[in-house]
């Protein structure tokens, strides 16, 4: 038996009497793109918050590279190679676009505090390297022209891209995207899907994507998990999910109204 790449075992989150997520179990292999869908309030973001350590699960376990990472500190989980974006954009608004990305390199900084204070050659060359790397990522997402602008001045769609760029800069192996296509028009959504797939290949990523845009999810993901009221009601390939009676009933509406 090989290494467990990523697995959750019976993850449950209870807020008082409300069970937000119930026995969520999933196993992910490297290089997969997983879609996490479900109606509003199904507990999708809660799953992300548990994986990234923002919420401590009531019960259950999260295994990452053979290691139990349940309830570790969020910043520590990031250093282990799990990055995320936020549904409600959380950029560092007053910092420049470039600085937003450069922040993500801080946890891998090799220079010591005293190197930085004394501006040693080691620190200066590392800072220069980080700046170049950050710029490279910005160029990739097409934000290099805005590098010096404050992040809050970007239009909405660009802010979403910056969120992804910033998460990529932390050097993740597993990337969690929370509604990356929200507020994008069909054309942009199509481009985003292409972009996400290219990221997977160039950064050797594994992705979990929460998204409401069915076209996007069905086109992008190789496997889809459907959550309804915290319960996993279906899991499988996009084609199977589209025809799954439970899913159609709970999420996509009656069959004759379904778009697929």
């Amino acid at each position, binding site marked *: 038996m090989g290494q467990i790449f990523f697995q959750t075992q019976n993850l449950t989150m209870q807020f008082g009497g409300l069970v937000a997520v119930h026995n969520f179990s999933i196993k992910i292999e490297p290089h997969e793109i997983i879609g996490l869908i479900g109606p509003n309030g199904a507990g999708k973001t809660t799953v992300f918050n548990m994986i990234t350590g923002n919420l401590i699960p009531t019960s259950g376990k999260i295994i990452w590279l053979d290691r139990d990472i349940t309830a570790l500190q969020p910043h520590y989980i990031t250093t282990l190679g799990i990055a995320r974006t936020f549904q409600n954009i959380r*950029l560092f608004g007053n910092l420049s676009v470039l600085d937003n990305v*450069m*922040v993500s390199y*801080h946890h891998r900084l090799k220079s010591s505090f005293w190197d930085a204070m004394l501006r040693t050659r080691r620190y200066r060359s590392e*800072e220069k390297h980080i700046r170049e790397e950050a710029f490279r990522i910005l160029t990739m997402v097409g934000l290099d022209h805005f590098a010096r602008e404050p992040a809050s001045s970007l239009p909405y769609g660009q802010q979403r891209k910056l969120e992804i760029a910033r998460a990529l800069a932390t050097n993740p192996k597993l990337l969690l995207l929370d509604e990356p296509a929200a507020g994008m028009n069909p054309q942009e959504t199509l481009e985003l899907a292409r972009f996400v797939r290219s990221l997977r290949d160039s950064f050797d990523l594994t992705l979990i994507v929460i998204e409401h845009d069915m076209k996007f999810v069905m086109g992008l993901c190789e496997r889809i998990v459907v959550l309804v009221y915290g319960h996993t009601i279906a899991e499988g390939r996009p084609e199977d999910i589209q025809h799954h009676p439970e899913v159609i009933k709970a999420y996509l509406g009656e069959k004759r109204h379904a778009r697929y």
Partner: protein
Amino acid sequence: MDKGLKKTILNISAIGLLFFALWLFDRYGTEYHVRILNNIAVFIILAVSYNLVNGICGVLHLGPNAFITIGAYTSALLTMSPAEKKISFIIEPLIWPLSVIQVPFWMSLIIAGLVSTVFAFLISYPVFRVRGDYLAIVTLGFGEVVRVLCNALQGVTNGPLGLKGLKPYTNLWWSWAIAVITIVVIQRLINSSWGRAMKAIREDEIAAKAMGIDPFRHLLMAFLINAFFSGVAGGLLAHLITTISPTLFTFFLTFNLLMIIVVGGLGSTTGAVIGATLFAWGSEALRIVESPMQIGSLYIPGIPGMRMVIFSVILMVVIIFARKGIMGQREFSWDWVFAKIKRKHT
């Protein structure tokens, strides 16, 4: 010429110019001028380092007066001679090791900074378990605790009697050299990867954590550095005023510092320097308003505290009309100066 080299030369000449001006004041200025300049320097140290916590990290820390007090007492107890201490501590003698130690002024300042840092470290865990208003209250409470302890620990602080007759070691050179060092250290920190991480925490702590930044470590770092410089400034103040008592550095001082950095522009070192200068100079210059006045037929008797009313009005005006203060989050830079000069020439 290389741009970096050019700026270094300009920085060094600016500092040279500053010290030449100080030399002139030291030589030809009145005692009044020298006192104002010393005050300005001390307030620059306090405001610039305080700005690191409040402006850069975005944490409402209301206890710098505690660290100033600790620094002032530490430094004062270390520079007084054993004989002086014996005379001062009349109600209860000073406890043993302190009663015989006497160190040079510069060493007492460093120790004052370190002792403040140790106290900051001790309270850091409860402080950074909470955020926002709660953190403000915890730090505010610590300031009060220190005041009460200073009153109660007769054997260490001489209680309400305070320490009198300290040697006026603080001169223009000490205060301004330390002010320059503070600005350089804080600026280097802010413009490093650490400073960037601190700003990220200010902007959005949850996102900062998701980018791999440990908030506790970075906030602690800023808090300790602030405590160190507050302690050193406390030592300078003690040897400037030459008399310290538990009621000397109250929350009122913290409030003044807060006013300085808000008016200067939260998060801007340049703003903190401007704010400190205006405040220290203003509080002397505005003494006129507290003296009796005759405007036409109207006679106004001297009202002590009028200065604070004026400062409060200024603060309100700034908050209403220039919410980001004088500098906002901008900084002075030579590039900006070059750009200005260039525009004038074309």
